[in-house]
């Protein structure tokens, strides 16, 4: 968290739904302007044992009060500064494992806060970001002082819509979270799933309580506004007992939806049993990669086409903060499992570089595009970009021109590019060409080197013995070491 007065002219507002406050983002700082009416609640919450412990352990975003002059002094309200999470990510970029972990964090904090007289008023995955592989609850204004007699968790339906039902849809119907959250900001309504299930499927235990019964109840009394009429419990103890019971039940349901490691997907185990690399060739590639890391010492690295994260983990173990992207949710999920288990600074995301996540939300300003977050067009966001065994997929399968790919690499990296050129004679290249050889006569090692060296300076290169594959370490022309 920076303490310097960073009064930048560009101040953008990216959060506005909660009347309690707004988020202000300057170039390097995340500030929150809190309405005076809600400020004392927030102060009290931040002083609770729950909040202090969660901030110490990194589960809650670190938050300190700052002077209102930090946002130009024109705002009425208290101003807080949040720890900056290096790379924001959104649920439509997460595998099911990460959505599940975000849900567990939300419920755990909610149940803990209950013990100290606070409730959690919204429960959406957008309240959670990832610091590496660790989920961090970032919306401190979600916690509000409870009416002790109120037995309602107003955010229950939102928790169901945005955590439980997407995980249920993924588990039972193979729905992709990327499609669910790209299409619906606030998740899935029970009605959307009800019609997908068979008659018997509608009576399965979790489906019954999360979809079928709410769907029937909504159909019968949905137009009756009296259901929202305020009612109170007879005692604070009873209200709290009910809320704890509801949240504990939601936690059990969430755990029942926990994704299991997949048996197989197109890309799982790629390095192990589907790849053409022999152990010696893989070791050679790994040696080149490690030497590149040792000589350039990147603090941040973008691993494009990370597969199961073999090289991301190597980079993280050498101190880099890694964002690993792949198109297959199964392999991204497996990266998260391992990174989380070993506490490695790897943020795995389901992102296709040839169709990068667009900016979303109101005026396309609520959630930034992947390229904007990656610093494309603003000097690059990573000390190193690694593109290992992925270039041929981008050039052949997606038909992206080589020069365009190198231009994008040049925009994403602040300094270095580590790239593997896969020649047209390579069996994997041949497999994806599928007889369209005439389209790719321009892809040669010479044309690649010529295009690359127009943008980068060559530091090292090496052919992988016995393969039509070459490894290159490039440095951007004019990059500061």
């Amino acid at each position, binding site marked *: 968290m920076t303490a310097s007065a960073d009064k930048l002219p560009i101040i953008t507002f990216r959060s506005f739904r909660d009347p309690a406050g707004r988020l202000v983002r300057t170039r390097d700082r995340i500030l929150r302007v809190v309405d005076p009416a809600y400020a004392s609640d927030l102060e009290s919450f931040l002083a609770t044992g729950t909040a202090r412990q969660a901030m110490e352990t990194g589960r809650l975003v670190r938050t300190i009060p700052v002077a209102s002059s930090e946002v130009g002094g024109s705002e009425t309200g208290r101003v807080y500064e949040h720890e900056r999470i290096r790379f924001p990510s959104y649920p439509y970029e997460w595998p099911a494992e990460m959505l599940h972990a975000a849900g567990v964090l939300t419920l755990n904090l909610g149940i803990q806060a209950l013990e100290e007289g606070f409730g959690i*008023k919204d429960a959406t995955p957008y309240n959670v970001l990832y610091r590496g592989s660790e989920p961090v609850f970032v919306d401190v204004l979600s916690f509000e002082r409870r009416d002790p007699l109120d037995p309602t968790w107003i955010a229950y339906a939102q928790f169901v819509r945005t955590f439980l039902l997407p995980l249920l849809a993924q588990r039972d119907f193979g729905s992709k979270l990327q499609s669910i959250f790209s299409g619906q900001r606030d998740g899935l309504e029970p009605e959307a799933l009800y019609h997908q299930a068979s008659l018997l499927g509608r009576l399965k235990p979790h489906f019954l309580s999360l979809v079928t019964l709410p769907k029937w109840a909504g159909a019968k009394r949905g137009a009756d506004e009296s259901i929202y009429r*305020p*009612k109170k419990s007879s005692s604070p103890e009873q209200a709290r*007992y009910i809320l704890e019971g509801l949240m504990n039940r939601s936690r059990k349901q969430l755990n029942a939806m926990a994704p299991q490691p997949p048996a197989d997907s197109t890309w799982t185990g790629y390095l192990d049993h589907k790849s053409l690399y022999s152990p010696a060739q893989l070791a050679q590639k790994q040696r080149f990669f490690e030497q590149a890391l040792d000589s350039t010492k990147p603090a941040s690295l973008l691993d494009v086409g990370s597969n199961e994260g073999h090289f991301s983990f190597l980079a993280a173990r050498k101190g880099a903060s890694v964002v690993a992207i792949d198109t297959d949710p199964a392999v991204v999920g497996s990266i998260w499992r391992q990174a989380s288990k070993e506490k490695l600074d790897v943020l795995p995301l389901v992102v296709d570089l040839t169709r990068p996540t667009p900016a979303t939300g109101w005026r396309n300003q609520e959630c930034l595009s992947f390229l904007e977050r990656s610093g494309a067009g603003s000097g690059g966001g990573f000390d190193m970009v690694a593109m290992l065994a992925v270039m041929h997929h981008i050039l052949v399968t997606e038909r992206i021109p080589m020069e365009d790919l190198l231009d994008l690499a040049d925009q994403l990296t602040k300094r270095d590019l580590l790239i593997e050129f896969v020649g047209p004679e390579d069996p994997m290249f041949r497999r994806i060409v599928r007889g369209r050889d005439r389209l790719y006569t321009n892809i040669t090692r010479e044309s690649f080197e010529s295009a690359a060296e127009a943008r980068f300076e060559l530091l090292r290169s090496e052919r992988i013995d016995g393969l039509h594959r070459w490894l290159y370490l490039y440095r951007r022309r004019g990059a500061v070491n």
Partner: protein
Amino acid sequence: MKIATQGNYKIIGAALLLLPLILATPSRAYGYADPGTGAFIYQAAYAAFLGGTFYLRKFLNRFFGKRKPADPTTSGTHDRVSR
């Protein structure tokens, strides 16, 4: 006499079980998150059920002298709630 006392407890217990079905329905929705419709009604029904088990536990604890580890009445943390 003893049987009569037990009968009285049963009646009181049944009344206490029904009471929360009326009282423990959802309170005002002052959050900004969409409370939904079907899920909100489902929550109300589940809250009513939990409200019933709250009194049932309390009643059983008193009658049988059992102490439930999760008994919320023993925590007393709501003393800190001022509003």
